[in-house]
């Protein structure tokens, strides 16, 4: 692995500002002209415990966390933690150092806070020996002492950044600018002092024996650093969404928070409610009354939404739900990513229920597909769901600012105005035939809104007549059911024929071997395919976003063109592979699974290794924490 890239890992205790420090440093790297990608690892607790953030920066497009890392800034565990906790968790101060060493690349750099970690502790983990074996360059620095001297020990993060900048030969200018944006007064002054002193002390004290330097680059256009949650929230804003209801649950809370913070300034409404049944039901109520509404949750909370989801389907009330997956089952691992709610999201809710499901694979797709989800929902009066995971939710990437420069779309789709309602079909009592099957096009029967003249009807979760009355007549049932089902066919046709494909393709079209993935594993797969093809293999890949309705034609074509394919996803049971086999039954024998479900996202090298074991070598077990499930019949 060449070191034309920096993968900087800052490790410490939860609650120590690891996140905000890394966010600022990532932005500084971006402002210096580099492409950046962040990966966050944290435990499900408020203070203490081992947490880290990785920032990958290079003078080229970066779409994944990369393999391992090459710079460790180890800060020590939370000083703000209750000392009594030690009884339960042991001595965690050393963890930000000891827990991270396995993934540090050969020749990498280690900076640790000598003010927190004693020499005995360092000896106990054989740091010296391991550093020699791996050619690591170790720089102990009293970061806490330095921070304390100028301000408060919480500022040791800044000292760490100063040391980093010195060791990587970076200018301090971007870091200072960001500090000025984030703080002021004495706090700012103290931080600037600490930054400079750490920088200079490092340069004075050490002869650098490492080769790693910060890469340099230049952006032609202005860049913004944002997360998948930002992209979804902003996509919703541009789509005209002005109502959100929710209940906090990691990692969905991010989208909920971003919209709650912005809506008051935009005339939107945010409601934090008693539970997720209520949350999704509120979205249904707001949409029924004429506002573009969304709700969402993570797996366990989404389970409660299956009721209102079915209600939205039966009453043909457009809503957008987001499902931000974390490792399951049940409450699972709250802060760890997994792609294991796919089958649940596709099939939840009783009856022949229908919904549209998109699984964006990166930040740009998250923005675009959120807009699309609103458009489809309001055009076809059907719930749409965005399924993504804790990884995409929390990772940050730089995106060209111009990417967002487009018109807002507050259009309510197939909703009638009062003038249009005058022309619409009514029954003998003057009720609007809201669920009319005679005049429906593509299964869509345009709707009215409460308050509109001439639009009175009843929306009900029971099977209903054209004006909405409960109706169990067999002919009506068949007409209504077929009309609702027709919408999904029409959506598939629209996605195939009128729009650019939501699927993302990699590699050479004529390649022999295929890799198929979905959602946030996309970036790692893209990089793995590049690497495999550079090594002389013949691999192409597709990352699928349309989960329902399924792009049968596209995937059939892809699979027909390869000898075999490996399905890469973060779960233990190969859920997406199951979907592929259900949708494209004849290809079961071509599919192998590469699965990872240990709570960490794929690294590109693991996918390369999975391919090598599967296709090239065959005879060895993979060393990484992945599992291979052979093809049907193998």
């Amino acid at each position, binding site marked *: 692995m060449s070191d034309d890239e920096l993968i900087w890992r800052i490790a410490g205790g939860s609650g120590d500002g690891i996140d905000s420090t890394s966010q600022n440093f990532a932005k500084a790297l971006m402002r210096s002209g580099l492409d950046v990608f962040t990966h966050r690892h944290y435990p499900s607790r408020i203070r203490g415990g081992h947490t880290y953030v990785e920032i990958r920066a290079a003078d080229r497009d970066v779409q994944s966390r990369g393999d391992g890392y090459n710079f460790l800034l180890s800060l020590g565990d939370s000083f703000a933690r209750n000392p009594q906790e030690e009884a339960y968790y042991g001595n965690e101060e050393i963890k930000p150092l000891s827990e991270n060493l396995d993934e540090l690349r050969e020749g990498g750099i280690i900076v640790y806070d000598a003010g927190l970690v004693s020499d005995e502790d360092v000896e106990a983990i054989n740091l010296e020996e391991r550093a020699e074996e791996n050619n690591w360059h170790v720089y102990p620095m009293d970061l806490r002492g330095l921070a304390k001297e100028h301000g408060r020990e919480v500022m040791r993060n800044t000292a760490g950044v100063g040391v980093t900048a010195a060791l990587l030969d970076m200018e301090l200018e971007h870091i200072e600018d960001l500090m000025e944006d984030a703080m002021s007064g004495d706090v700012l002054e103290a931080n600037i002092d600490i930054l400079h002193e750490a920088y200079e002390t490092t340069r004075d004290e050490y002869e650098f024996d490492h080769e790693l330097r910060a890469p340099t680059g230049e952006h032609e256009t202005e860049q913004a650093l*944002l997360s998948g949650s930002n992209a979804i929230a902003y996509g919703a804003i541009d789509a005209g969404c002005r109502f959100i209801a929710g209940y906090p649950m990691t990692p969905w809370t991010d989208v909920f928070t971003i919209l709650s913070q912005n809506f008051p300034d935009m005339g939107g409404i945010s409601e934090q*409610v008693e539970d997720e049944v209520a949350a999704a039901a509120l979205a249904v*109520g707001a949409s*029924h*009354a004429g506002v573009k509404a969304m709700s969402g949750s993570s797996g366990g909370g989404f389970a409660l939404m299956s009721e209102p989801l079915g*209600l939205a389907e039966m009453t043909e009330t457009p809503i957008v739900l987001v499902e931000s997956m974390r490792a399951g089952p049940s409450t699972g691992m709250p802060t760890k990513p997994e792609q294991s709610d796919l089958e649940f999201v596709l099939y939840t809710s009783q009856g022949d229920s229908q919904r549209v499901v998109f699984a964006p694979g990166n930040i740009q797709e998250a923005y675009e597909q959120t807009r699309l989800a609103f458009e489809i929902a309001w055009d076809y009066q059907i719930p749409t769901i965005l399924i993504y995971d804790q990884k995409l939710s929390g990772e940050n990437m730089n995106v060209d600012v111009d990417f967002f420069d487009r018109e807002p779309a507050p259009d309510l789709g197939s909703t009638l105005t009062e003038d249009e309602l005058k022309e619409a079909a009514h029954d003998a009592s003057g009720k609007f035939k809201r669920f009319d099957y005679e005049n429906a096009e593509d299964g869509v029967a345009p709707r009215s809104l409460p308050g509109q003249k001439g639009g009175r*009807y009843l929306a009900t979760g029971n099977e209903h007549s054209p004006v909405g009355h409960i109706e169990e007549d067999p002919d009506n049932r068949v007409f209504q059911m077929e009309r609702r089902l027709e919408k999904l066919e029409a959506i598939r046709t629209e996605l195939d024929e009128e729009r650019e494909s939501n699927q993302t393709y990699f590699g050479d079209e004529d390649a022999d071997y295929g890799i198929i993935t979905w959602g946030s594993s996309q970036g790692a797969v893209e990089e793995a395919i590049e690497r495999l093809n550079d090594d002389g293999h013949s691999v192409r890949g597709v990352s699928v976003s349309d989960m329902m309705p399924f792009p049968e034609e596209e995937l059939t074509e892809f699979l027909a063109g390869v000898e075999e394919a490996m399905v890469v996803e973060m779960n233990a049971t190969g859920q997406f592979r199951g979907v592929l086999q259900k949708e494209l039954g004849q290809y079961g024998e071509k599919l192998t699974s590469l699965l990872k479900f240990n709570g960490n996202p794929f690294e590109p090298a693991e996918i390369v290794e999975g391919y090598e074991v599967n296709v090239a070598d065959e005879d060895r077990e993979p060393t990484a924490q992945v599992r291979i499930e052979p093809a049907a019949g193998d």
Partner: protein
Amino acid sequence: MSAFNAIGEEREIDRDEFTPGVEPQPTWCPGCGDFGVLKSLKQALPEVGKTPEEVLTVTGIGCSGKLNSYLDTYGFHTIHGRSLPVARAAKLANPELEVIAAGGDGDGYGIGGNHFIHSARENHDMTYIVFNNEIFGLTKGQTSPTSPKGHKSKTQPSGSAKTPLRPLSLSLTSGASYIARTAAVNPNQAKEIIKEAIEHDGFAHVDFLTQCPTWNKDARQYVPYIDVQESDDYDFDITDRAEAAEMMRETEDVLNEGTVLTGRYYVDEDRPSYTQEKKAVGELPEDPLAERYFDDDAEWERSYDLLERHT
């Protein structure tokens, strides 16, 4: 154009407007108390000056859930226990709508109990009518949260070991700002109470006693009833929380013994509704959000105005 210009027009409103001109006819059993709720709503709505198009009735599941099939307003027949969250959001999205939520005792006090507590707590500006017949009717006679202790049913054959829920007291504790109990057998009082509830600016909870002649034959049919406002035996200040609480407790105690007390129990005109509270903290737009989508001049803020903080 505004899509909502029906609202606010002045004209005489005929109660027949609230009766569907064609099917469906009510499927409730002969003698069912639910007819009483339907009738009092049909009487009350024209008297408070609402046209059918200005009203959204949101119901849950059960016999009570069919209310809006027989009442010719805009309607949303939701799912078991979920009428309130749907109704709340519709009111927030378009505060000009007259929102009336309705459901049964199983629906509203059982499966929807959590929503009831929180809707009352937030004091949403709406009317909530609970058809309380102390039984699950549509699923054929199971014990409900308000069934008396010892009530025998197919699911509790030895008699219920549970003390019945106290809807009035629960409502007061949760924060409802208008609380009354009426009965289907008392149409004049029912109409007046429903009128007041609709006109009340806040969460108005009406516990509406409705007899179930089919599944609750043993239960009292709520006659004779006593109107606490008309009777000299009861004197309390309906604006005084403590006095109202005491009166509610007595009412709920004596109902178990067969004495039916009805009337207004608590009215707090000073407590701001949720709509007002939400506007006060700047979280609810002044004009109905729903109208904005039909306003060609509306300025829609864009996400990329927010991007600056990310650059």
